[in-house]
């Protein structure tokens, strides 16, 4: 388990404010099955605007599936998921509406290899939001600068390192100007020396007040950035708490076992 030390990344928590009233995501009694396999069991979760939530848990616990349900990459069979005031049903129009407002970063980056970095970043704004090309490119440059790779704009993804690709993937999502960002193990496929550059970008993003849900094994990140850590096991939310409490005073046996295995 690679872990970035807390002192490596400076974090300014002053701008990370959580709204008291505005709900970003609401999940009520949600269940999901893959065939006969019950992957998610009675999930209840309310995420306020500005929250930074880290979802931890052993592999196969359903944490990725959970966040993939939030932008309907996975379908839930029971219960309710409301994102940004829109309930996710099989209505394709609503699904697209939600996806426009929810950015997602994948473990394997999933950049489009046949398009340049710039085209990766401008495609969705131009063809989903209808933004003119010049404006989309300006926005793209802005975010590429923020993830510190403006000079790579005209290269193809295959010419970039893993860390650079993941930073582009974050920029690509931000170009859609989302209200919520989902991170599905964004650093798990990276070499250790590249993890930090991606985490820095994520910290930077948290400092802008973005609502973030991160499935990650980076407990240093969880401690420093998250306002809430959720522990999942076997498709259930077992425990959730503020990071300090979660790490120092875990309540549940399975949480204790998990923490003892990943923290040294």
């Amino acid at each position: 388990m690679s872990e970035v030390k807390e002192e490596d990344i400076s974090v300014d928590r002053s701008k990370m404010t959580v709204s008291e009233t505005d709900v970003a995501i609401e999940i009520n009694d949600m269940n999901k099955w893959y065939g006969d396999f019950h992957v998610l069991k009675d999930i209840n979760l309310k995420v306020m605007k500005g929250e930074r939530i880290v979802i931890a848990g052993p592999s196969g616990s359903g944490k990725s599936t959970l966040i993939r349900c939030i932008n309907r990459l996975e379908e839930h069979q029971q219960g309710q998921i409301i994102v940004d005031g829109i309930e996710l049903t099989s209505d394709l129009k609503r699904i697209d509406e939600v996806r426009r407002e929810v950015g997602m970063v994948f473990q394997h980056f999933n950049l489009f290899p046949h398009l340049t970095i710039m085209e990766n970043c401008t495609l969705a704004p131009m063809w989903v939001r209808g933004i003119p090309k010049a404006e989309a490119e300006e926005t793209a440059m802005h975010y590429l600068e923020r993830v510190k790779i403006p000079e790579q704009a005209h290269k193809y993804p295959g010419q970039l390192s893993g860390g650079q690709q993941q930073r582009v993937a974050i920029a690509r999502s931000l170009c859609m100007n989302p209200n919520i960002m989902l991170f599905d193990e964004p650093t798990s496929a990276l070499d250790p020396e590249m993890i930090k550059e991606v985490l820095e970008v994520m910290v930077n993003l948290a400092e802008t007040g973005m609502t973030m849900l991160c499935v990650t094994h980076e407990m240093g990140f969880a401690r420093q950035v998250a306002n809430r850590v959720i522990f999942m096991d076997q498709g259930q939310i077992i425990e959730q708490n503020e990071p300090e409490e979660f790490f120092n005073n875990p309540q549940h046996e399975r949480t204790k076992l998990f923490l003892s295995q990943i923290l040294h």
Partner: protein
Amino acid sequence: MSNKFAYVRTEMAQAMPPPVTQTGVVGWMRKNLFSDIPNTIMTLLAFAFLVWTVPTLYNFLIGNAIFVAEDGTPCRAPEAGACWAYVIDRFDFYIYGFYPESEYWRPNLVFVVAAALITHLLWPELPFKGISAIAFFVGLPIFAVILLNGGSFGLPQVTTEKWGGLMLTLIIASVGIVVSLPLGVVLALGRRSHMPFVKYVSIAFIELWRAVPLITVLFMASVMLPLFLPEGTTIDKILRALVGVALFQTAYMAEVVRGGLQALPKGQYEAAHALGLNYFKSMYFIILPQALKHVIPGIVNSFISLFKDTSLVSIVGLFDLLGTVQATSALVEWKAPHQATTGYLFAAAVFWIFCFGMSRYSIYMERRLDTGHKE
């Protein structure tokens, strides 16, 4: 937050020249032809094979070949090689079939326009692709039908029974190619659809057409179809063959394209969806460009085999290039031992030129579209 990168290189280091021993003709021969004993033996054997075959071939094709003759008499000499004079004499027939000689300018004009448009479309650097695409896919078919068939604008009508030769081969092949690729893409997407109706209709179409030999399709189109049509209605023979060939090819193309769709990592679909692109936009911008690029060799393979399969239409009484060559292969005034052989050699050479051209273009496109590592 402070920037903690100490040094980030922005440009690649200069490549160094290769060692001198790796370059030059002698170095190349030493490395590739005589590197060790088995290699040297193979080189000598290959050389002996060339010494044995090349002079014979040369004598047959050029040295003893008859290029100019009034009729078959010189070709009947015992030492005579290929009878090119016969091909030259029949050349017009091979190219235009029974099309009247006074109207040759019409297919010529269509061919020139088509060639110009294709060149423009296939040459990546040239601008205004949209205009030439519309001209090619919409304008050209109308233009070609009006000009080739005639009967309007003061042009004398030339019925399709008179069409033939290379002209007919090119018409069938290009219609087959132009129809089969987009239809094949639609069917491939249909087969992967989640909508049961679309999915099963696509599967039924593909499996039905793919499981039938092309000859059967052509026979059905020319012999059986008229039986089902109401009396008095006739569908042009060439049109029937065109539809048959195009639909047959579509089924194959659909499976080639489906192969490309399946080879794409799931993450590409997910990333496209997560960005809010709907089905058609994600297919158009993300999935198809990559999937089609992956299967360029398969697509061109299909095109090449289609181009050659057009010769099967001679079975239903159409005279394509091979049909015209075959029809004259026993012509009495050119009777000679190598008469038929020369004709077939000519047909083979023409087919080869077109197919090899397609092959080279596909290699060029593959290289051009290669943007480095896959995901």
